[in-house]
């Protein structure tokens, strides 16, 4: 009996951790998938925007003593603008070039931004001093038996749900969201209907990058570890989540993120935490081999 209780509490604890992590994956994955939807490009530099989101908030809090929530909002806005600039200077000139050219540029931008962060902040892992953050973050919010949920987890889940709901609303209920979907289905016809395609693409980058920054800030808090490679590692996993759900599909990215987070946490809990990263890669390879359109992606037409 006691054994059973212990088993189920391990399961529940890992489930909670997995869902938290999954929400973060989903926040990043929608950025990959939305950009892919409108310009069929895997924006490899997306992970770096996530990293900059974490660093910018961190720098504002620690260097300039900006209150945490204010710093977070500023960082999100800066990263949204950053996404627009990235598209305009790096990708827009290559819109009509072969796709490989844009893909190589994306990898180049990713490396460039990693090294830029390395130059600015160094290679050390940075952490928030406890007194810089709202005190309740690391306290236990709910505990039953051995299962504990910290406030930071509650906060992450809450923020994720709110942003995902807002995103869903934007994509399905606003004119610009409908335009994003139209562009992902037929760019030429969207232009023929009077949509300023470049402007909507900019909006998409802003949206994806802003959400990436949200994720970066949350993860920076969760692990309290901010470093220049964090975007690379997280980017690969979130990309795996996007592929799992079906690249180009926003609900797919949400589902893929959630599933991957839970799979990883359970894998880490039951097998060994050494398998944690391997699970994402394994899932990605299996999906690419057996169902390249993903769980709920469409194989013929891309969509947002």
């Amino acid at each position, binding site marked *: 009996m006691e054994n059973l209780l212990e088993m189920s509490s391990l399961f529940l604890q890992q489930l909670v951790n997995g869902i938290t992590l999954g929400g973060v994956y989903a926040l990043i994955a929608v950025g990959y998938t939305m950009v892919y939807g409108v310009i069929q490009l895997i924006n490899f530099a997306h992970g770096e925007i996530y990293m900059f989101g974490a660093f910018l908030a961190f720098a504002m809090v620690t260097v300039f003593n900006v209150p945490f929530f204010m710093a977070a909002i500023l960082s999100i806005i800066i990263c949204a603008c950053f996404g627009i600039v990235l598209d305009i200077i790096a990708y827009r000139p290559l819109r009509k070039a072969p796709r490989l050219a844009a893909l190589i540029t994306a990898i180049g931008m990713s490396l460039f931004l990693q090294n830029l962060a390395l130059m600015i902040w160094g290679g050390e892992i940075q952490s928030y001093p406890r007194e810089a953050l709202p005190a309740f973050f690391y306290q236990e919010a709910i505990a039953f038996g051995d299962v504990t949920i910290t406030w930071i987890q509650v906060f992450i889940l809450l923020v994720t749900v709110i942003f995902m709901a807002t995103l869903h609303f934007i994509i399905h209920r606003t004119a610009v969201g409908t335009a994003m979907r*139209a562009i992902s289905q037929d760019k*030429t*016809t969207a232009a*023929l*209907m009077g949509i300023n395609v470049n402007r909507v693409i900019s909006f998409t980058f802003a949206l994806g990058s802003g959400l990436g920054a949200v994720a970066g800030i949350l993860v920076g808090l969760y692990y309290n570890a901010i470093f220049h490679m964090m975007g690379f590692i997280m980017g690969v996993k979130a990309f795996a989540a996007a592929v799992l759900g079906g690249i180009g599909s926003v609900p797919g990215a949400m589902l893929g993120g959630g599933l991957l987070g839970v799979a990883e946490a359970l894998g880490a809990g039951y097998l060994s935490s050494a398998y944690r990263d391997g699970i994402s890669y394994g899932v990605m390879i299996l999906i690419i081999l057996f169902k390249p359109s993903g769980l709920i992606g469409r194989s013929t037409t891309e969509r947002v």
Partner: protein
Amino acid sequence: MLKLDNVNSHYGQIHALKGISLEVEQGSICCLIGANGAGKSTTLMAISGIQPVSSGDVTFEGESIKKMTPDKIVRKGIIQVPEGRRIFPYLTVEENLMIGGYANPDKAKVAEIADKYYEIFPILKERCNQLGGTLSGGEQQMLAIARALMGSPRLLLLDEPSLGLAPLIVENIMKIIKQIREEEGITIMLVEQNAQAALELSDFGYVVETGEVVLEDKADKLLNDPKVKEAYLG
């Protein structure tokens, strides 16, 4: 209203338009007829700003539009119904219509036009929450026309509206095109392979062959022209 002056256009090495000149008069229906690959769609895409013009000029109401972006041209009042209808398959019928009104700053007007076309095409109203891709060809053509009209065009470009439709539906579509000109006063440029139907409807016609205008005249004259009869009218 619209004037093409010696327009050339290329797809890489392919010289698709070789000095096309034509004019569309305000309030008229003008048609472009010609065989497959003649350059009709390319001409419309060049007018709409999708296909780059390598030389020559396109002017709309005296203003050159050749370097304008497609969305700007739409805002000037030229809207195209592209070949093959190109309904957004994963948007609902209603969303397709709303996209048509995207560039129209007058949202009350957009809603009004939507209501009007729901009345003219009751089938669209019935299907308004259905995905565009699930409509039949004829329904899609009606949706494509209604979608373009949502932007309140002054010049409507129609690329082969009869393509792949049954004769009865073609007749219906032609009637609607006539209505659009008569009731809304919208000028129309019609591209067709169905030369008979197009010429019967039009005031003026151009015959295009391999990227060049080879014949132009009043539509009724073209209908009786022996060369046209032989080549384009069964």
